[in-house]
């Protein structure tokens, strides 16, 4: 079941490419909306609009929407920037919530295309571990995307993060919804998942109480800095 470091690296590069492609697509969408809104303002100002109040009201709505879109684009760029820097240092102290939040933002487009809700419940705890954040993100990606792809519309995937003990984090991924095939079997036999767990020295357990409910429990410890 084990794979070489070269193959693992190839998989990680493919993962990075996929994340960048989806994120830039989404950012482009935000810019497309912003451009249309700004064009609409110009159109409204050019028309022989006699009802000034209505034009003003519409322009106010549009500028509010532009602000919201700019915020969403900025959030996406922020997540993408953080994601790009995760690999700068392989093992270091990081907040698990932040690494998971970045990936969750970057996977929203994929989730939206599948019409599945993808949420992160960071709770009140902020577990900090010493480990490889980029491998953790790859692990989460390798676990979540097969679930997104298998899940029918209106399903949900929620991640709950907590501190197990000092220096060890627990990530509980709960998938609810009708799924095609047996994604849990694919995850068990996934070489990428296996290698990520090995690199992180992490533990995993899965629980499928019924066909529509899957729970994955990850235990992310701290490791020694090389």
């Amino acid at each position: 079941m084990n794979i070489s470091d070269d193959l693992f690296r190839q998989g990680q590069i493919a993962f990075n490419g996929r994340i960048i492609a989806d994120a830039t697509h989404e950012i482009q969408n935000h810019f497309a909306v912003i451009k249309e809104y700004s064009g609409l303002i110009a159109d409204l100002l050019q028309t022989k609009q006699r009802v000034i109040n209505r034009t003003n009201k519409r322009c106010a709505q549009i500028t509010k929407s532009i602000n919201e879109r700019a915020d969403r684009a900025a959030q996406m760029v922020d997540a993408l920037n953080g994601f790009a820097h995760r690999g700068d240092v392989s093992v270091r102290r990081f907040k698990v919530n932040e690494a998971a939040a970045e990936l969750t933002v970057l996977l929203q487009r994929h989730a939206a295309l599948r019409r599945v809700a993808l949420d992160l419940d960071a709770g009140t705890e902020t577990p900090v571990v010493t480990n490889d954040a980029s491998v953790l993100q790859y692990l989460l990606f390798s676990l979540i995307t097969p679930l997104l792809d298998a899940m029918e519309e209106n399903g949900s995937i929620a991640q709950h993060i907590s501190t197990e003990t000092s220096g060890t984090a627990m990530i509980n991924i709960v998938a609810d919804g009708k799924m095609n095939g047996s994604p849990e079997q694919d995850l068990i036999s996934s070489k990428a998942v296996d290698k990520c767990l090995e690199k992180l020295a992490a533990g995993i357990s899965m629980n499928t109480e019924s066909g529509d409910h899957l729970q994955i429990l990850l235990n992310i410890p701290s490791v020694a800095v090389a």
Partner: protein
Amino acid sequence: MSKINVLLVDDEMEFAETLAERLRMRSIDVKVASRADEALTILDSGLQPDVVLLDIKMPGIDGMEALREIKARDPLIEAILLTGHGAAASSIEGMKSGAFDYLMKPVDISELIVKIEQAVAKKRAVDQESGGGSGS
């Protein structure tokens, strides 16, 4: 040229509704669908657009499959692909499947209008040659 009818299909509803509003301000009739299956239902209900503006990447049936379905229903309907995908391959595949042209998002409204008018002129010329006149 009689009034142009456009069916705009895009899952990004704020983009679609805003673009539709701007096209309507330029005297183009626009119907909006947020999904490909919704667009096909609209076509099946009897709407005969001159041009379909079609996003490539959508939930469910994607733009490429929708294009083939639209062409199967009415080969005379012209389609212009809108994509933020950045993938030339998808757009070229779309051209092979009968799309009139493609534009990258964010779109320039003047460029889009020119493309729409060219597509409509082609459609109506073919329509006349075949002795049709779809009434659009």
